[in-house]
């Protein structure tokens, strides 16, 4: 065990009691006096010219306080990546998908607002729509954005080494095409917000967001407000998984309506609207050719990828880069060529979702590696062990694996699953499969070009002593970041966790890029640690002055002052403290000087004790175009084994057990790490087996509810054996790195490989519904 006192333990989460009792306040639980409710008019057509918008009947409806269109909102273009600002708040000349926002209403209640929306009359001239990658890329296809010809939202062309030459020297090459399906984030809490303007024209937006910082900047830019007049505050958030990392139209709309009416305005997405907002995982079509030597040594990967992006870009520029760059590891691969195209289609916009850009690519490749292993007569685990990278290795695309417990992860799942006694030895219909993966611990660069710190943190001691307040603009969205930061602060300061209060998710507390790219534990963790250490230094300095003991001879541990060189007389401090608290019943009795007394002395000597911390990764990665995407101060990695049973008559797959190992560096909270691993696995399993957003031929989502968009239920979910592997990451706070996204990487391919083991079928399209598996079984003439 480590000698840490707080981190690396299983302390209950700080927010668990309020959530277990229904006290935690989420956005729809909030309200303000005189608050209005907003509703949005969204396009019923996938592609059309707007000829005329008549809002007069809506405006006349009693209870309606404002109706806004692009005339009010203006045409400031925004998006996620400044390289592709292709959205406006409302459409003014054209709608590009079913759900594109045209107008909004604020009224005294939601019912009235929705009724008013129904009274807005829009004359459209319908345009031909493109609903698939093929249609969008066809010669003469209707164009979504004049500025981005050929419906290309982005394209990437990269080569590391020389793939063509390397392939010539390979003993075996394998080419496969693979596709996943568009996903929905399907967080349980639909996004929503409340915008409030004060009398000085300052805006506060309370929003269910993963990134208060990016929302703040976008609001300021679009509304034409100084950033200093915009504050974004995040209440408890019911999951995000990437989708809530981008500003949404609802947020902008509520602010515009609040400004126009002078009243607080609330907007909550309906579940159907969540499907139209989308911003979730793209549909990817991957074509990969991998070349190896006879002994299994990987030599080259030639990779093409097409992404169905939907109507706008959102995070998609990063997505198309990640889809290539995240195959650079965790295996030694000297030659890699990647060509990626993200294509606009007349559908809701895709963006970032857990495992950003890398999930389908990983699924495609890890299945292909299994095929190669089989043809070479090598156990799939041996093939991976042979090729895997080690700590200190750098990928061909310049990603530095500063720590990498890949071997430990593989061996852990191999042993725990009983691989050796099962692989190739199970009866027909039963199978076992494995796969690996890795992921960034935070993007190396912010989404907008800037030298900004990625996060700042402030630790302040309560003036009365003994209580530690951690302030940060980071986003607790359910993953447990507040608890992690509380634990980091407690550890760094030498106090128990119950002395610490974490106050986060507010742009007033500093800069934090937010909860995406698995960045907060490492990055915000660094800033919090630095701030806490700064506070500790100040307390010990004040004590040093008071006790005439060098600060270096003292430490704080478990809330007590430790004197390294024997006893020190601190009775003066104690009696002073007790005098100050006459009549109080909790005077310090301990046989040691307490942190409470010490921090009080520090305040009395210096005033409020505040420490600040900040973090920005060093310059990372190569110099080629797109080198920034995929860089990170550290990489987590994982391996999983899936055991499945396939009903050979119906094609139905049952996952019987999963064994999961993840290297998260040093675990800050072991229970939370397992929670991220298990949750990632469940999401990956859903994508593997069930989940797919489906459209009709008019571009409408058919299954826009949680009955027909199928998450795994408690009955589908198998028991998971979760194994934490801990490397000591040199670039992480206390050695910590990511777990929230990397843990999803091996799930889909492990299942695919297990299905192959059970059936002899390689299926190259998700999800593995019983019908798809049945069709494959039939095509191969397999019966029972």
């Amino acid at each position, binding site marked *: 065990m480590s000698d840490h006192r707080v981190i690396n333990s299983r302390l209950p989460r700080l927010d668990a009691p309020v959530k277990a009792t229904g006290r935690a306040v989420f956005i729809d639980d909030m309200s303000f006096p005189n608050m209005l409710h907003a509703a949005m008019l969204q396009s019923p057509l996938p592609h059309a010219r707007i000829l005329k918008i008549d809002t007069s009947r809506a405006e006349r409806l009693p209870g309606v306080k404002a109706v806004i269109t692009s005339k009010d909102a203006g045409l400031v273009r925004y998006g996620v990546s400044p390289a592709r600002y292709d959205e406006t708040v409302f459409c003014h000349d054209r709608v590009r998908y079913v759900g594109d926002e045209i107008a909004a209403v604020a009224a005294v209640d*939601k*019912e009235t607002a*929705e009724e008013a929306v129904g009274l807005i009359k829009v004359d459209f001239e319908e345009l031909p729509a493109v609903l698939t990658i093929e249609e969008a890329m066809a010669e003469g296809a209707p164009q979504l954005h004049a500025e981005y010809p050929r419906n290309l939202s982005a394209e990437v062309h990269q080569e590391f080494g020389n793939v063509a030459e390397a392939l010539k020297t390979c003993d075996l090459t394998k080419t496969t095409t693979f596709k996943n399906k568009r996903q929905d984030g399907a967080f349980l809490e639909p996004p929503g917000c409340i915008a409030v303007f004060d009398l000085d024209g300052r805006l506060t937006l309370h929003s269910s967001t993963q990134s208060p910082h990016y929302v703040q900047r976008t609001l300021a830019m679009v509304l034409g407000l100084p950033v200093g007049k915009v504050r974004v505050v995040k209440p408890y958030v019911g999951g995000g998984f990437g989708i809530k990392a981008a500003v949404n139209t609802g947020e902008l709309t509520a602010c515009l309506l609040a400004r126009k009416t002078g009243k607080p305005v609330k907007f909550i997405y*309906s579940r159907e609207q969540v499907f139209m907002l989308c911003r979730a995982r793209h549909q990817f079509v991957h074509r990969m050719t991998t070349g190896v030597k006879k002994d299994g040594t990987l030599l080259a990967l030639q990779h093409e990828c097409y992404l169905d992006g939907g109507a706008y870009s959102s995070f998609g520029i990063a997505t198309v880069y990640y889809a290539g760059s995240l195959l650079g590891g965790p295996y030694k691969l000297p030659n890699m060529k990647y060509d990626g195209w993200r294509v606009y289609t007349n559908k809701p916009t895709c963006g970032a979702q857990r495992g950003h850009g890398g999930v389908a690519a990983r699924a495609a490749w890890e299945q292909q590696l299994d095929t190669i292993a089989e043809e070479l007569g090598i156990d799939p685990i041996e093939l991976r062990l042979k090729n895997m990278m080690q700590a200190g290795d750098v990928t061909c695309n310049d990603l530095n694996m500063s720590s990498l417990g890949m071997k430990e992860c593989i061996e852990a799942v191999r042993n725990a699953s009983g691989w050796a006694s099962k692989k190739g030895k199970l009866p027909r219909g039963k199978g076992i499969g494995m796969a690996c993966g890795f992921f960034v611990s935070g993007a190396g660069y912010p989404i907008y070009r800037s030298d900004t710190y990625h996060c700042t943190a402030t630790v302040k001691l309560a003036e009365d002593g003994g209580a530690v307040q951690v302030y940060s603009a980071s986003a607790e969205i359910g993953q447990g970041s507040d608890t992690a930061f509380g634990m980091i602060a407690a550890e760094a300061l030498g106090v128990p966790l119950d002395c610490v209060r974490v106050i986060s998710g507010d742009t007033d507390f500093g800069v934090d890029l937010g909860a995406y790219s698995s960045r907060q534990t490492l990055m915000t963790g660094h800033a919090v640690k630095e701030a806490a250490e700064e506070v500790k230094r100040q307390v010990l300095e004040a004590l040093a002055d008071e006790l005439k003991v060098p600060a270096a001879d003292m430490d704080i541990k478990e809330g007590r002052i430790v004197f390294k060189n024997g006893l020190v007389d601190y009775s003066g401090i104690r009696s002073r403290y007790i005098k100050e608290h006459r009549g109080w019943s909790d005077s310090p009795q301990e046989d040691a000087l307490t942190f409470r007394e010490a921090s009080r002395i520090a305040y009395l000597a210096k005033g409020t004790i505040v420490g600040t911390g900040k973090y920005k990764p060093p310059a990372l990665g190569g110099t080629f175009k797109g080198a920034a995407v995929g860089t990170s101060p550290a990489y987590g990695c994982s391996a999983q084994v899936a055991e499945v049973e396939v009903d050979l*008559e*119906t094609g*139905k797959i049952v996952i019987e057990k999963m064994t999961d190992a993840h290297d998260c560096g040093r675990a800050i909270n072991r229970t939370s790490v397992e929670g991220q691993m298990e949750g990632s696995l469940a999401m990956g399993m859903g994508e593997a*087996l*069930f989940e797919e957003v*489906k459209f009709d031929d008019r571009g409408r989502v*058919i*299954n826009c509810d949680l*009955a*027909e968009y*199928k998450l*795994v*239920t*408690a*009955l*589908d979910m198998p028991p998971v054996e979760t194994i934490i592997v801990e490397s000591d990451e040199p670039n992480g706070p206390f050695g910590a790195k990511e777990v929230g996204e990397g843990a999803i990487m091996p799930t889909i391919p492990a299942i695919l490989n297990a299905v192959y083991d059970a059936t002899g079928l390689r299926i190259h399209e998700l999800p593995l*519904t*019983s*019908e798809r598996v*049945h*069709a494959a079984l*039939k095509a191969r003439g397999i019966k029972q």
Partner: protein
Amino acid sequence: MILPKFEFHEPTSVAEACDLLARHRGKARPLAGGTDLLVNMKKKVMSPGHLVWLGRIPELSRLERSNGTLWVGAGVTVSDIAASEAVAKAVSALGQGARALGTPLIRNLATIGGNIGSARPAADLPLSLMVYGAELVLAGTSGERRMPIAEFFKGPGLTTAREDELITAIAVEVPRGYSGAGYLNLGIRKSQDCNIVNVASFLELDEKAERIRTARIALGSVGPTPLRSLKAEKLLVGAKPDERLFEQAAQAATHDCTPILDFRGSAEYRRAMVDVLTRRTLAMAMAEARSRT
């Protein structure tokens, strides 16, 4: 999501309920568990001006066995059917259907009358009732009538009930010994699913347990209403039950359905699954029949 406006009625007797339905003819819907109707109203698929809630009519909630007949009031919840020992003992396949329906939360609200009355082709309860030869008791302003459940269904959401009529009870003659049934459903996941295919089978053997005396097979989600497979039944009656026979019957059942393609599954797959589920439910029915000799 806001429900459309309506007038709410809570009759305390069947007669009162029928009167209300008659008075607001064409504009009223009976409301049972609400798990189907309220969802459709929220989605603005329906907006009846009057809801006649049946939850305050005590006579609808009886579940009892008398004189060889199991009476299930239309208002009995699906979870009560799923948990009922009387159901498990007398008509096990009905219990299997009840346990397969929706989620525990839905089952606590949904009623057997609602599951039949909403006339969804994929519904979980009607198939077993069909193969048990159940009859519906319908009450209207002009009195009560009984009809075999199969005659109730006209199409998706459409029934032969008159606008002032309600299902008040389901009467199932408790099968004799030497008989058994089985119900299976196939969806995407294990809970909360709309079926792709569901099948119920019933077999009654002669006293020597040698030949099949009666066979009934009902297929769900593969036509506008739940369907009987007469071709399969004909093959089975009088024959000696064995695996081969069940395979032939299952094959025959695939010719008795008219599946359509929708986003949940193709016609071809549904037809293939009729084969598999028919065979499997016949085996279940046979196993139960053998255990009840």
